[in-house]
């Protein structure tokens, strides 16, 4: 197994994914198989090869800094799980008070 159960638990936490213990164990088996497959890349000597992050040359694209109309507030909030006035309602960040909801 190239991944331990603890590895999977730690990465799930980093990725902000709440997962039942049984799912973590299944994930460990499946991800280990995938990582074993991926390990074939180590057969290749890539010393001195430039990494390629993008298939085509990409450059910064600039535009004049001119204000244009943005999404109206109602359109921006239409999919909000919780709306408070003209704001998104979210749970408290620094304590465990109940989330604001309407």
């Amino acid at each position, binding site marked *: 197994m190239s991944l331990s159960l603890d590895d999977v638990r730690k*990465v799930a936490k980093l990725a902000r994914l709440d997962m039942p213990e049984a799912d973590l164990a299944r994930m460990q088996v499946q991800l280990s198989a995938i990582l074993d497959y991926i390990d074939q890349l180590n057969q290749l000597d890539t010393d001195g090869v430039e990494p*390629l992050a993008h298939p085509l040359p990409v450059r910064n694209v600039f535009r004049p800094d001119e204000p244009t109309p943005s999404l109206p507030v109602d359109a921006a909030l239409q999919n909000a799980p919780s709306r408070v006035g003209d704001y998104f309602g979210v749970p408290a960040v620094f304590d465990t008070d109940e989330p604001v909801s309407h």
Partner: protein
Amino acid sequence: MSLIEKTATELLALQAEGKASALEIADAFLAASAAREPKLKSFMLAPDADAVRTRAKAIDAARAKGEPLGKLAGVPVAVKDVLCTKGIRTTCSSKMLENFVPPYDAHAVERLKTEGAIIFGKTNMDEFAMGSSTENSAYHTTRNPWDTTRVPGGSSGGSAAAVAGCQAPLSLGTDTGGSIRQPAALCGIVGMKPTYGRVSRYGLIAFASSLDQVGPFAHDVTDCALMMEAIAGHDKRDSTSVNESVPAYTRTVNDPVKGLRIGVPKEFFGQGLDAEVEASVRAALKEYEKLGATLVDVSLPHSPYALAVYYIVAPAEASSNLARFDGMHYGHRTATKGDLIATYSKSRGEGFGPEVQRRIILGTYVLSSGYKDAYYLKALKVRRLVKKDFDDTFATCDVVMGPTTPTAAFKAGEKSDDPLALYLSDVYTVSCNLAGIPGLSIPCGFTKTGLPIGLQLLGTPFAEEKLLRVARMYEAATDWHTKRPVV
């Protein structure tokens, strides 16, 4: 031949000749899509009959008045549910976006509307475009119109099944590692992944941003060219969309390429390739020789590593892109009360299905401290080698050809417990995305049991025009593209 079996080009001609109205066409497809839906389940959201008919009537009225009409006037086009449609629910076949209604249209959707197309429902897909069978939809599994016990491929399986099953004459899909070409091959139709940057990704819900492209499904190459004309071109809202003029693909599609040199990579004919698929593809290559083309033996030595590169790069980009689904601004938010971190984790744990979670964890792992160089950086270096293989190969030939998929359509459920086995169905398609080059799949035969087989054509960046002409040469000499399944 009934209206629903016709190509978009034929439907446009019928309207121009006054032999069918846009409304008659719309009604024919509304009836067929509804009647066939229980068997195929192509749609996430069925076409809205009232909206479709209203739009069709408006096209007919504009035609009667002699007003200018778009390239796709009165032609229904189904849209993969990963593309935002203003005011129409867009779910990515995920519980995460079950109730998401976009406030704007994706660029490709906007272009279709401008050209007079009628948006015709949202099609089912693997959740967030992650999968090769459409079985990862959080809602239902789409079936292959040629054999409803089999999958249509994926992730754009709904869009492929809708066209193959004559529920719509055209559709839009997206291709990150083969998600247009693989289902096109398995469903016996034409599907094209354009060059990276050819079609704007604005309004496409991102999976892997350096690989994703929007592209068409169609019954034949001419219709594919027509769709490309409509959706390709620069859009300032996507800074990776390339500012190059769009050729009039339909005007040249019937011009054969003289002195055509076809590269045949030995790596595409190795272990794992089904004998019937190989025989059909070899026969197609022979047909090209008869048409005057020269076959050139070539090698893409790093292509056997492309899938491993893909399963690092795509999950890495996905883990970053999907971080936006935090239950705060839109999408699913857990009903369990808790602090901010708990709300994020619960919302994401509940909203994402197993394959999406698998890829987020894989992507987070390969980008995490201590592993980034060994996995992500290594993958980017091999990606350079995969691209260089193509650069070297295209110095000796115009196009590269091979099978689109190693096998024809597999049974539903056959590979759903083994993610790696399923990943291998993309073994011939992923290198094209890594290199950013255009590719398409065209039908080139059937297995003895009547399942379609696809021929993959790959070209140089922005050579879609040539690729379509080359595809049309074969199509003009064969009749696979005229076959329709009995649904």
